[in-house]
């Protein structure tokens, strides 16, 4: 489904990703782990089309289609979702208005009927239950004054509403206490399905106790230096990232 080949990315002339290759099949859950500054968010942003990153080599295709040729919204319409590491606040913009527009924009792109306010309300309520969110959330502005936990829950709630085919969750676990982590992980697990692929970007293996991945990749020095199954994450936990520096990364 998603194929990333020899991806090379620069930010302000500085080389960040130096030939990253990975493949994600339908329904698979991949974890990408790596120390801070290794380029995890860079990868997430490049996949979703954020400006400011220069792709200087390689390719990204989703079901054979060149993702790099599409705008961020077009990628969203294709079913790509990014759960942000730092969700941004939009003061004054009502969360429900925002999400209804997002859902309807995606439905329009597929030639489907738009939801009216009542339809949307019913669906939104159902998804909020999934994330144990309070109804009052609907009247608040997008991420405005949200706690760290609320922001992350909100990201997964949005994912639940948008029903993406490929979701990239960038450090969805950071800043969560154990209870919030459980709620968020439960939400993610309920959204797992045979036709939805997941890329979970994380610094800590803790999240992977709750959302168990099929594959684990270690990102270091702008490349994937090791890939394996669930056990690789546990190994990382006991040995830390220190060993990465001692092993010369294959060029």
């Amino acid at each position, binding site marked *: 489904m998603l194929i990333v080949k020899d991806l090379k990315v620069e930010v302000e002339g500085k080389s960040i990703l130096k030939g990253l290759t990975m493949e994600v099949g339908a329904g698979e859950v991949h974890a990408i782990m790596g120390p801070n500054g290794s380029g995890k968010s860079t990868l997430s942003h490049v996949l979703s089309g954020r400006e400011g990153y220069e792709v200087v080599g390689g390719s990204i295709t989703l079901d054979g289609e060149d993702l790099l040729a599409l705008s961020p919204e077009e990628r969203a*319409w294709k079913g790509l979702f990014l759960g942000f590491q730092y969700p*941004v606040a939009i003061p004054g913009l009502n969360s429900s208005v925002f999400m209804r*527009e997002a859902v309807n*924009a995606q439905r329009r792109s597929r030639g489907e009927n738009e939801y009216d306010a009542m339809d949307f309300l019913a669906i939104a309520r159902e998804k909020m239950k999934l994330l144990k969110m309070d109804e009052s959330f609907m009247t608040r*502005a997008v991420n405005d004054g949200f706690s760290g936990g609320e922001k992350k829950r909100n990201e997964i709630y949005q994912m639940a509403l948008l029903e993406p085919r490929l979701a990239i969750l960038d450090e969805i676990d950071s800043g969560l206490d154990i209870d919030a982590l459980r709620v968020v992980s439960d939400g993610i697990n309920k959204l797992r399905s045979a036709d939805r692929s997941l890329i979970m970007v994380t610094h800590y293996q803790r999240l992977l106790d709750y959302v168990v991945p099929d594959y684990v990749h270690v990102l270091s020095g702008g490349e994937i230096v090791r890939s394996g199954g669930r056990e690789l994450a546990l190994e990382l936990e006991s040995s830390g990232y220190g060993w990465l520096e001692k092993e010369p990364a294959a060029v």
Partner: protein
Amino acid sequence: MATESEEIDRYISREYEHGFVTDIEQDTFPPGLDESVVRAISAKKNEPEFMLEWRLEAFKIWQQMDVPEWAHVHYPDIDFNSISYFSSPKADSDKPQSLADVDPELLETYEKLGIPLHERAALAGVAVDAVFDSVSVATTFKDKLAEVGVIFCPLSEAVHDHPELVKKYLGSVVPLADNFYSALNAAVFSDGSFVYIPKGVRCPMELSTYFRINALNTGQFERTLIIADEGSHVSYLEGCTAPMRDENQLHAAVVELVAMDDAQIKYSTVQNWYPGDKDGKGGIYNFVTKRGDCRGERSKISWTQVETGSAITWKYPSVVLTGDNSVGEFYSVALTNNYQQADTGSKMVHIGKNSRSTIISKGISAGKAENAYRGLVKMLRGANGARNYTQCDSLLIGSQCGAHTFPYVEVQEPTAQVEHEATTSKIGDDQLFYCRQRGIAEEEAVSMIVNGFCKEVFTELPMEFAVEVQRLLGVSLEGSVG
């Protein structure tokens, strides 16, 4: 990042929609201003002697005044002798007597603007007075309003039919010598709306005036006077558009509001005069004096304005809080783009005890535009327990525009409280990307962010205008769930 700003540029530089010219026969004075012109305007309107004298006095005062230069706006000197001071659509009689007499082209113009002049506007519950260039061409629902004693007519008519009210209130809020442009207006004003709400009456519908400048090289000087007698309520809407012309055109209006004991006036404006083209050519110079007097106890005056047009806006709707426990409010959104300049804000002058005022100002600048908030809060000695809260927020779109805040505070009363908050923010790439990642296209995303920023003001607008305003800002998110 370049592409993102380009898209923003494209969005914010959309064309002006109301820029058509209506081809109808006009009766226009030659350019120039001296005493004979003032006399001629008065004669044209067949005014009673007291009005002519009032105008002549204003003219004398104006001649001794200088153009104000303190505002944060820049423009070449205006040659007041190159402007024509009167223009009206030529009708068979001097003035249309009913809608049936109105030039069909003119009706079409209002139709194009989406302004319902026909009686079917009843459905919308709005009574409309339409002012085309300098003359009021049609006022709807006069009869229905008359049943409850509400007077809603052109000021030129009120001068004849209700001279005692005009004599008593005209110039009582904005005196002749108040400022350069208001003095000019008093000398040459041609028409405008007059409203009187009798004691205890809640006006049964929204009242509304639509101003349209059409003629070339013509100044528009309308004057509006609204009096809400004891315990009465009225909500008044004002809209404005103009054709696209390469020359700058002058608009110098005066609005006076008087609220007696327990009366409430809500005055809403959507100002969409032609702003000039994207290189800053043409556009309206909008120099307006708007002031309300909360003359009675517990009276309340609210100004809500959405300013998107004009090359230059110079406007400070104000409230003089004379009565004890009176309330003054100012809610404003001013959007400037390309080379537009706005210097706008409010003045709240507290005289009455426990008088309260609120100022919420939202300035949005894009392109190379300049947007300034200028506000004065004055607490006079004796205004025991008076309070003001001021909040000024500026939003910048792109990096070539400017926002400025000039709050002035004068407190002579030790028990008075003044609170001021100000913020400046930029539509961030991160906000736009967040929206786009969710599938919301850039143009819509900008609209949503801007709309969110203006929310506290938009909720103050009457329904009739809220829709127009959202369209104006290119927004389509009505019927919110929350």
